[in-house]
């Protein structure tokens, strides 16, 4: 498992959606009118594919996947 440290990227969605919740559970400041919590979760949804892609890239670099 240690050889696949890039898999730690897969935990990013857990941090964004669940770990960060106490900090982002708020309406203000609004961003482009979007309430802060909604905006944060939208951001997390867009960043999840990036995190999984980084895990995949790590696997590729080692020539395994």
């Amino acid at each position, binding site marked *: 498992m240690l050889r696949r440290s890039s898999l730690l990227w897969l935990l990013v969605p*857990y941090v964004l*959606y*669940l770990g960060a919740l106490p900090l982002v*559970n*708020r309406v203000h400041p609004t961003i482009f009118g979007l309430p802060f*919590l*909604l905006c944060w979760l939208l951001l997390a*949804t867009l960043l999840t594919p990036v995190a999984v892609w980084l895990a*995949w890239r790590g696997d590729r670099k080692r020539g395994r996947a």
Partner: protein
Amino acid sequence: MSGNAAIATSVFGAFMVLTVGLGLLSVRADRGKRGGGLAEWSVGGRSLGTVFIWVLMAGEGYTSFSYLGAAGWGYNYGAPVLYVIAYMSCGYAIGYLVGPMLWGYARQHGLVGIADMVAHRYGRPWLGAVVAVGATVCLLPYIQLQITGMGVVVSTISYGAISINWAYFLAFAVTTGFVVVSGLRGSAWVSVLKDVLVIGTLGFLAFYVPVHYFGGYGNFLDRLVDEKSQWLTFPGHASGGMGQSWFVSTSFLNSLTVVIFPTTVAGYLGARSADTLRRNAIALPLYNVLLLVPMLLGMAALFVVPGLVGADSNLALFRLVIDSLPAWAVGVIGVAAALSSIVPMAVFMLVIGTMWGRSVLGLVPRLAAHQKLGSQVVVVLAGALALLLTYTAPNTLVRLSLISYEGMAQLVPMLLLGLVWRRMTLYGALSGLVVGAALVCALVFTDRDPLWGVNAGLIALAVNLVVALAVSFLGPGDQDDRPDAEVLADVEVPAGEADVTAGTAEGADVVRAAAGADAMETGTGTEGAREGKGGGGPP
């Protein structure tokens, strides 16, 4: 029948015919290339590429709940509904690891679902039957939810021309109409139609509704923030205990459950290669952006059609649609929602049939040679049973649905931990499962979910895990002489052989060769002649 009803009903009817046709066509298009064994029907011959797998798995995840429940929760509670996005994203991410692992295990040993995976892991065919029966109890309510969901949608968008009881029957008839014949591949084909319509209609609604009712997004969001701020953070509006700890525990539990959910696993096993699944894990979370649309529209409905209560709030989105759009558009949006019932329902029925055909009926010597036929019969029976219960005793399945997801979660230690950890014993896994499942039932049916603000299923899973570990360490060991490589799954499944040269002309040959090997494994042509456990897959 009014003009509007005639138009919307015609649009709907035409698309339903198209759906069954498309599902059946998928069999024709592929006939002759592979044998017609159980694996061909259950898991699409393990041959679906990245696009089909994406479409199929997105199709499974986006159910009638997305149109009805998501909008209804958004309308009633607000923020708590966001758990759906959270758990799906997290689950898709760890699916990057779990998907290829389960795919490789099933391919190596010629398995078609979680029930026979467990049977193979612990070397006990009866354990597969136990899991199949338990999983069926958890899945039947989902079929009913799709039937009732589609019933409500169809009777609403037909302006009442199609009665709700007929609409229930239509849901059953259309789904059964193609899935019995075309299996997972047919579901994938229908998913293509579904995704085009879902993405198109929700993309349109996301812009149209705020502009039509509020003069633009800025105004809509300003009013939301000013007047409904209670809906915009946890614990939401009058949500009865669905605060932050509920959100975190539920999302976490469901993210573990969704990766072993039998329908998800059917999608995994349908993939052509391990790398197909890895690519899919990257692309799939993007689909979740679409889930935000019905949630937002549900909140928009707060201003337009205030005062919906009970089951009516599930129609929050459709009230807006009927109020603001012409009949043909209502019909098209209704079709998208109906397909969001049909595709998941097809896969639910398919996995029930597969589990019974392989793991229950397969135990009976006289039936073992006819696993595909047996599976197809069970598909019809399971659908018919869910339909019958919808008419006669709807509350039975509604009550069962409360334990569905949390009950299914109790399989996680037995399946996932068991596949990577040899010291997990049969007695350990089984004791954990029994205790966990009993605890879920006890807590849910006595209205103690959430317990202390935490999802009861997660508490049961923790107890399940402790029991499983304790019994494995302290209880009797397994008498199992098979080597680890035979029993455990490979966490580092190499990119599938078909994928090494993917994209080149040579790649296509390898794909065909791999598919051929698979057809051999499942008994080419002759109905399930070699589909028994001893089938022995390619090395």
